[in-house]
């Protein structure tokens, strides 16, 4: 079977190459920390640490794995060039871990803890980043908007629910987590609105490529 034409340019790994050893070490440390019971218990003892620190860290670990591994990118390029499968699996995985039932089980069942440590980095971090990178601009906007809407929905549910949703955490902790999510949601909304009204803030960064281009002929002439 003829190989499909390469539609997408390979990802830029210039920066990733420089950070590979550090990111790799951080990744191993994070996995180890989550598999060592005492470290895992420290995260899981509080709903805020569990949900708003440990899970995002695991997702970041998965995303950094994708950024730092060229063979992984090449493999994904072959099996999921458009990122649709990653988007579906990432969404499914996110919904799975948004359920209070699974958050609860991950605090007591060692198999669920192992499932969390493997599926959150791969299913959420890696899949979402891959899907995001392969998406069109419209799809990227939709993903960002849905991400923000999910944070807002969770904040609302945690703040408004009269019931204790997670059996492992008190209702007061649930409301604290809801407040933090609400603050994050409002901060995102305000930042996005300001960005929409006044444009990007990091003008220096925007101007960088221009200065590089202007430098190039000088180097050649030298």
């Amino acid at each position, binding site marked *: *079977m*003829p190989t*499909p*034409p390469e*539609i*997408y340019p390979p990802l830029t790994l210039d920066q990733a190459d420089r950070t590979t050893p550090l990111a790799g070490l951080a990744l191993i440390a994070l996995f180890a920390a989550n598999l060592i019971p005492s470290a895992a218990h420290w995260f899981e003892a509080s709903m805020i640490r569990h949900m708003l620190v440990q899970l995002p860290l695991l997702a970041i670990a998965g995303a950094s794995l994708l950024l730092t591994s060229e063979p992984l990118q090449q493999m994904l390029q072959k*099996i*999921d*060039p*458009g*990122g*649709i*499968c990653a988007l*579906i*699996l990432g*969404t*499914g*995985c996110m*919904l*799975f871990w948004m*359920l*209070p*039932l*699974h958050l*609860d*089980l991950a605090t007591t069942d060692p198999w669920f803890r192992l499932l969390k440590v493997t599926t959150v980095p791969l299913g959420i971090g890696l899949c979402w980043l891959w899907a995001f990178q*392969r*998406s*069109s601009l419209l*799809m990227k906007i939709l993903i960002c908007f849905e991400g923000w809407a999910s944070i807002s929905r969770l904040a609302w549910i945690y703040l408004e629910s009269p*019931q*204790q*949703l*997670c*059996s*492992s*955490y*008190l*209702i*007061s902790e649930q409301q604290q987590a809801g407040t933090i999510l609400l603050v994050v949601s409002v901060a995102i909304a305000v930042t996005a609105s300001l960005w929409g009204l006044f444009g990007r803030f990091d003008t220096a960064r925007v101007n960088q490529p221009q200065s590089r281009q202007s430098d190039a002929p000088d180097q050649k002439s030298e």
Partner: protein
Amino acid sequence: MPACSTVSKQRYFLQAILCAGFALGVLLWRTNGFSNYTYESARRASINKSPTALSDWQLQNESGEIISLSSLQGKRLLVNFIFTRCPTICQAQGSRYQQLQHRIAEVGATNIVLLSVSIDPDYDTPRRLQSYREIHRGKPGGWQLTRPVSQQQLDTIIDETGLRIIADDIGGYSHSESIHLVKRGKLVSIKDWDSTSLDALINNADPT
């Protein structure tokens, strides 16, 4: 999303359908058809689907006597979990049990026994259990107020029922408020403590 070549497009579409089916299947399976999202609802559904056999719990009642589940064999037990210094839900449950006890006496359903088990056995001495009954104006017959004979026994009870108990901010505990129906040594269902189905259960019970 950018398009693929014609040949791989079909395969890719199939691949995406399989991924969607897998994700949906896992979510359907785990939530029991999108009906259980919390641990408590999943616990109830699991018990209703397949009743759990219980070991012969050893409990000490307010008179200091040791009773076991096997000694209550042949009775339907309505089991709740309390701690006497709880200022909120355990007090409401005490009143509820007093009402149910009154109803049991009216109907003459002596094959139904109310069983309150303390989750704080160190604090809840027989004397304190007795005070709890007095506060809620409960009568002696048909309602057993007990505590597990040891911490190990409490752990066994927690393990068998799937109960979750966590320490709260005011030196007490947060725990399931539900009532557990035990029949022939098996935990057969879990109901809300204020469910009207408990009254129906007593009303429809055969007087013995």
